[in-house]
């Protein structure tokens, strides 16, 4: 009896110390989320229904006034539309680009490791650094792109495009740079998904008589769909909430043509000192992102390549 009693006691001791360790390991994450996510989120709610401004104490509850005034603001409507254009266009480009890259990088070839490293670079390089590089590439005077276009006589030196200075070109530039930034992440996810497809399956399709495109659209992509969903939902969240590319490249200009909701919230709430309006703008994203987050959780459960 004593023999059986001893291990039991030890087991109990182990469990309680394991519980303590679990709490200790879990705590930093909880504290982090509470302090840096939950508290600011709660404050944003609070401010959105108040008349808070930077530098003036004593807020009052103003109900939905902030939302009403924001909705009437043409800049806000413009930014809302831009957010959708920015997100949808860059996601379409990212999905097409990363699928092509993942397919190209799946098979072995000489120098594959190096190419994989190159493709990962935009993801690991500091975002602001990359964006500043792009700012130079697209600069109105020093643009390398223009220099090349002039050299091959595609544009005339006195009529070169102002990549960041013309509304539609600025939007395209912002979308392209953001696509460049998200491409590696999506590519890596899809590569993982592709390697999970048994080699027999595309081989069976080849024997059955399917060519490259039929295999791609009828076999590979449908089997990749759960993984594609994950990549897309992450991409949507990363894009909808991101303002760095816009901030560094165009600061929302020219004439708010590249203004998106996060950048507008920042300019209004922090730089324009109107905390209440900024908070109201940023909260507009919440219902949409909640839906995306729910979808993500559901998809993540099913994200297995069968």
């Amino acid at each position: 009896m004593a023999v059986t009693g001893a291990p039991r006691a030890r087991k109990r001791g182990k469990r309680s110390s394991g519980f303590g360790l679990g709490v200790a390991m879990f705590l930093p994450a909880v504290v982090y989320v509470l302090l840096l996510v939950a508290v600011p989120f709660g404050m944003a709610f609070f401010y959105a229904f108040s008349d808070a401004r930077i530098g003036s104490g004593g807020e009052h509850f103003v109900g939905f006034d902030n939302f009403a005034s924001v909705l009437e603001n043409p800049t806000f409507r413009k930014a809302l539309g831009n957010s959708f254009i920015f997100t949808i266009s860059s996601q379409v480009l990212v999905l097409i680009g990363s699928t092509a890259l993942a397919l190209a990088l799946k098979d072995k070839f000489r120098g594959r490791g190096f190419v994989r490293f190159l493709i990962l670079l935009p993801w690991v390089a500091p975002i602001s650094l990359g964006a500043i590089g792009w700012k130079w590439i697209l600069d109105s005077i020093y643009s390398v792109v223009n220099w090349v276009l002039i050299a091959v006589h595609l544009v005339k030196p006195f009529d070169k495009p102002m990549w960041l200075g013309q509304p539609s070109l600025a939007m395209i530039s912002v979308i392209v740079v953001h696509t460049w930034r998200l491409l590696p992440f999506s590519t890596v996810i899809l590569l993982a998904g592709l390697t999970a497809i048994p080699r027999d399956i595309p081989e069976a399709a080849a024997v059955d008589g399917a060519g490259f495109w039929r295999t791609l659209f009828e076999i590979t992509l449908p089997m990749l769909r759960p993984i594609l969903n994950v990549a897309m939902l992450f991409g949507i969240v990363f894009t909808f909430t991101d303002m760095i590319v816009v901030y560094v490249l165009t600061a929302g200009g020219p004439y708010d043509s590249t203004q998106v909701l996060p950048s507008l919230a920042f300019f209004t709430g922090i730089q324009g000192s109107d905390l209440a309006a900024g908070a109201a703008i940023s909260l507009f994203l919440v219902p949409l992102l909640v839906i995306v987050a729910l979808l993500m959780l559901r998809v993540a459960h099913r994200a297995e390549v069968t």
Partner: protein
Amino acid sequence: MAIVETRAVTKVFKAGTLGAVNDVDLRTEEGEFLVFLGPSGSGKTTLLRMIAGLEVPTSGEILIGGEVVNDLTPRERRIAMVFQSYALYPHLSVYKNIAFPLKAQAVPKDQHRKKVEWAAGLLGIGHLLERKPRELSGGERQRVAVARAIVREPSVFLLDEPLSNLDAKLRASARAELEQFHRRVGTTTIYVTHDQVEAMAMGDRVVVLHKGVVRQIGTPKQVYDDPADTFVATFLGSPPMNLLENGGLIVGFRPEHVVPVALAPSAALKLELKIHNVEYLGSEWIVYGKPEGDRAPDKMVISRLPTADLEIGTRHTFAVAEHHLRFFDKATEKRAPARALSWP
């Protein structure tokens, strides 16, 4: 229907190492059921994949229907293949799985249903057409894979260990079904297996492969009764052929031919065995005996008898009739002409 032929086909995966398939020459007959038999790593699957066009030969030629197909894609070879894993398309229903080759080969759409139902009917899976592969049992998946292969009436039918994922009972019935099926359809078929029972039971002829080299091509009876070398002799048959050294020769004889001396008084080979172990298998007994004297000190001679009443540890004399002895050269391990034994 078509004849498949390989001429000096070699596949080397890593330069400087021994090839997975070396210098293989073979030729099927029209409508034949040819079995590639060998242990794992013998190159049988690689050879089949080269015929299918999934692997490019390092050298040599592959011909289907008299035409060199080395540079043709699998699609252009008009072959069908059943994979060991079945490789069903998991996101498509059984119907769409079977219809996929028709679609890919641009068969007019109005013929799809008729052909799919014909193939599904042949394999008795007509009631499963709306299911997804994950909702099927192993045996049902195997039939879907066969139906998908047969639906467009290929000229050659390749099967890569299609029964190895089934349990023993199902395997026996699926084997019989495949045999009947081949008899009915009559398509030239190449079948890869490591299971000698499958090879013997199904094959019109068997190609025995070892380390990428063809050791023997022959009917099941030929490879069993007249093995070309000691590898074939021991790979086929369970328990395998007994091999005893005798001067520059190796003498081989099947366990079922090792009988008590009373049954073969004028036998060429007499063996005094000390019984080491006896296994009762219901229909037969497997007797393991150690030869007395210095004839083959560490060898165990195996005998397969319909009845045996032998005590372990006792000594008995066994005999093998002359026409059951097979001789192999000790150095090359190849078959050697029969000759008189120098044993007492």
